[in-house]
């Protein structure tokens, strides 16, 4: 057949009456969509190159540009949608695995949109967070079932020896992670995101009193000063793992899996492994950083236990060691095993969790939604009487404060956000992170592009986001007549489902809307 022309996902509309040919768009597009013709003094656009990141549209001084989805060129039908045909055509041409970025965008049910929150009326006063204290502080890590205590002459003192009732030698209660709001930044590696993005996350975490996560890319030497707000990852590639890295962090996270690509490891193409990244990851410049699919020293749960305790030994039991897994079908028993193996927290990353690069078919077809995973894991851990032994962190596509508070009511101790944080930094979910051409300076190492993210602005925007969400969470809590987040945690009485099947309600452990207590 004849060679098919390049498919066009977007159309760049330029209002010629407004375009003044200032060429800002020409200078800004990393995909070379726009070009200036001095003969006609006009700017032309090649829509076929457009990825729909809306950078030029956002900054056009005369608002002359409008990026639109291209109207269908194909004769679609219910079975063969545009994306199916377009993807198939790409593969017929390249013979390769389709890559993509960010989280699953398929229309699976978003259970958050089928869960409603409660509020007080008459029998129970709602609380006004502007006038009364409203507490969001959260601690992450293993805690004993009971306190060992003494009261001497009216003095309250906690006995420091708490290990007797605990299955494993635990880090002390003082080493638990203290969060002022129950939201942390999820793992994104230096390499997949730019240095300035890392700086923004770290500074915002420090300012708000929460944590950011290095991902598997190591910790840039400049960022060691943020150790008190840093969780470091140990992933299957072991990139950047060394003594100082482990010691600087407040917690260590063993990454088993990721919601966007359960069952496979991270891939960072050699082009992105530039000077600082190669040093931070401790690999030669220009080599592909390919994390193996499994940890090759963890083929079973007892192996995980060994790694957990190796890391605890290495850090003298001074900090929590958690494990991050993807939400897969068997997530509840797996999480239970992870807790029993000694993890201080389990982070679960759901189907809609993002990524810098993943095979499209895996991102869109593997795993389960985080809502069901939280409910299943929390229920399982409580049934087994080990819920206190580890904290539960939920990740994977939290879009707003309501999603967060619903996750906590389902049983999560805190949530990880990453996509939301990137959107706050400018990301428009164009899903082209893997190309390294991010116009917003987020998922790129190109020096032309990375400077587009000014960490001072970035920090402020992230702080604003977390502050806004925490204010909203306080309002919702107060409405329910609750003034401490721990009283909502796992309190599914405050949730009701709409439009859900009996099975879904059962797994979520919530009643249907309209049912009273």
């Amino acid at each position: 057949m004849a060679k098919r022309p390049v498919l066009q996902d977007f159309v760049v509309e330029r209002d010629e009456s407004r375009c003044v040919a200032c060429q800002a768009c020409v200078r800004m597009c990393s995909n070379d969509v726009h070009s200036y013709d001095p003969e006609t003094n006009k700017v032309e656009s090649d829509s076929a190159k457009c990825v729909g990141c809306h950078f030029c549209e956002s900054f056009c001084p005369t608002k002359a540009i409008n990026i639109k989805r291209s109207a269908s060129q194909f004769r679609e039908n219910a079975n063969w949608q545009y994306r199916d045909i377009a993807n198939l055509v790409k593969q017929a041409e390249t013979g390769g695995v389709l890559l993509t970025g960010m989280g699953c965008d398929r229309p699976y049910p978003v259970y958050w949109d089928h869960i409603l929150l409660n509020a007080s009326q008459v029998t129970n006063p709602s609380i006004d967070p502007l006038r009364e204290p409203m507490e969001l502080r959260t601690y992450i890590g293993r805690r004993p079932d009971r306190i060992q205590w003494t009261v001497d002459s009216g003095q309250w003192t906690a006995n420091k020896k708490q290990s007797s009732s605990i299955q494993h030698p635990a880090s002390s209660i003082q080493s638990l992670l203290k969060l002022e709001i129950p939201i942390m930044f999820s793992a994104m590696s230096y390499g997949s995101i730019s240095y300035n993005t890392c700086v923004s996350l770290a500074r915002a975490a420090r300012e708000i009193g929460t944590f950011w996560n290095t991902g598997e890319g190591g910790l840039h030497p400049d960022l060691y000063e943020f150790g008190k707000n840093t969780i470091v990852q140990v992933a299957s590639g072991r990139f950047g793992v060394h003594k100082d890295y482990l010691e600087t962090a407040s917690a260590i996270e063993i990454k088993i899996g990721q919601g966007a690509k359960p069952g496979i490891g991270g891939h960072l193409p050699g082009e992105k492994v530039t000077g600082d990244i190669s040093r931070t990851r401790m690999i030669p410049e220009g080599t592909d950083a390919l994390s193996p699919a499994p940890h090759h020293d963890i083929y079973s749960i007892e192996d995980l236990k060994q790694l957990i305790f190796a890391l605890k030994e290495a850090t003298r039991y001074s900090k929590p060691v958690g494990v991050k897994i993807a939400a897969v079908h068997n997530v509840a028993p797996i999480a239970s095993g992870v807790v029993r193996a000694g993890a201080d927290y389990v982070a679960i990353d759901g189907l809609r969790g993002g990524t810098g690069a993943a095979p499209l078919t895996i991102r869109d077809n593997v795993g389960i939604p985080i809502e069901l995973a939280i409910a299943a894991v929390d229920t399982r851990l409580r049934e087994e009487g080990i819920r206190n032994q580890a904290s539960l962190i939920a990740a994977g596509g939290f879009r707003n404060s309501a999603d967060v508070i619903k996750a906590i009511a389902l049983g999560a101790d805190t949530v990880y956000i990453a996509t939301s944080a990137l959107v706050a930094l400018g990301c428009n979910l164009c899903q082209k992170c893997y190309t390294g051409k991010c116009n917003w300076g987020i998922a790129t190492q190109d020096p032309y592009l990375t400077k587009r993210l000014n960490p001072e602005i970035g920090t402020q925007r992230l702080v604003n986001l977390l502050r806004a969400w925490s204010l909203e969470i306080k309002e919702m809590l107060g409405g329910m007549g609750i003034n401490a987040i721990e009283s909502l945690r796992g309190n599914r009485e405050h949730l009701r489902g709409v439009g859900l099947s009996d099975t879904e309600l059962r797994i979520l452990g919530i009643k249907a809307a309209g049912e009273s207590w």
Partner: protein
Amino acid sequence: MEKLVADKDYRVASGCAVVGIMNQDGKKIDGSAVISSISVMRERSNGLGGGFAAYGIYPEYAGLYAFHVMYKTEQAKGCAENYLNKEYTIEKTEPIPTRKIMGIDSKPMLWRYFLCPRGGNSNEEDYVARTVMHINSGINDAFVFSSGKNMGIFKGVGFPEDIGHFYRLDEYSAYTWIAHGRFPTNSVGWWGGAHPFGLLDWSVVHNGEISSYGINRSYLLNFGYRCALSTDTEVIAYLFDLLSRKHGLSFEVVAKILAAPFWSDIERMPPEEKDFFTSLRIIYGSALLNGPFSVIVGNSGHMVGLNDRIKLRPLVAATSGETLYLASEEAAIRDICPGPDRVWMPRAGEPVIGKLNDRRASSVVSRT
């Protein structure tokens, strides 16, 4: 008993009246005083539940567990008695004496048993608690509503003063009386759903709505407590049992768990104290009772009054000699004790603790 299932399966929010009287020297008084006191607050109940707990009423069977059980059917009674006979030596079985009262009708069969477990049990109390949970959740139409030694709970559907006369409480004498009048927000009335809730020698009456109910219940599940009812009082009773009996914490500490001080207050404490309260909140965060409540909890040796952490429900305390009074309204205390030595409004989260044969009632010094 027609509505048994309904009340068991649904949580009922209720406004309420509570009264507690304790003579800390152990001197006993009959039930007419507490009936008079609770009747003062008649408008705080709506005739859909009233009840009493009395301590020290069965001195002749002091070593035996006194089970008060309500049955809907003869079959249920047979079933429960079979079960009890297998596991326990029953010293005495009798109907609970009642008198006919206008307004108290559709009463269930009310029986009491004085019994002790057969054979040696490493932990007798846990064993008895399990028996109660087994009957209440496993045998249809049978409900054990009192299971302590030398104490009894008397409750039903009606105004509390009518319930008191119905059970002939003027014929019992006790050193601690706890009473409750109920104002449930739905109309389902079930005798077992009235307060006090009891397990072993714990009795709990409360006025309020626990917004943290869901997590408190799940937290208790972690420690093997299965909530058979859907009531806040049940959860409060189990929390007291867990924290006080199993974890051996003093009532002062239990109060600081159930109505925890705010982080902002903890931040200002001296280092050791700050450490203690931080640990307490980290470990027992899921036991925090959130939402409005005033609660009176009794056991053989104590009577404790406690408000929620921002005092959203009323509770007044008074002392007169060795007698400690707690009530929703001061009028209810003045009705039976016109000239108390001291009357005060306990602050949010500050427990009022009465102890038998011990020093006088005192509230914990405010630390805020």
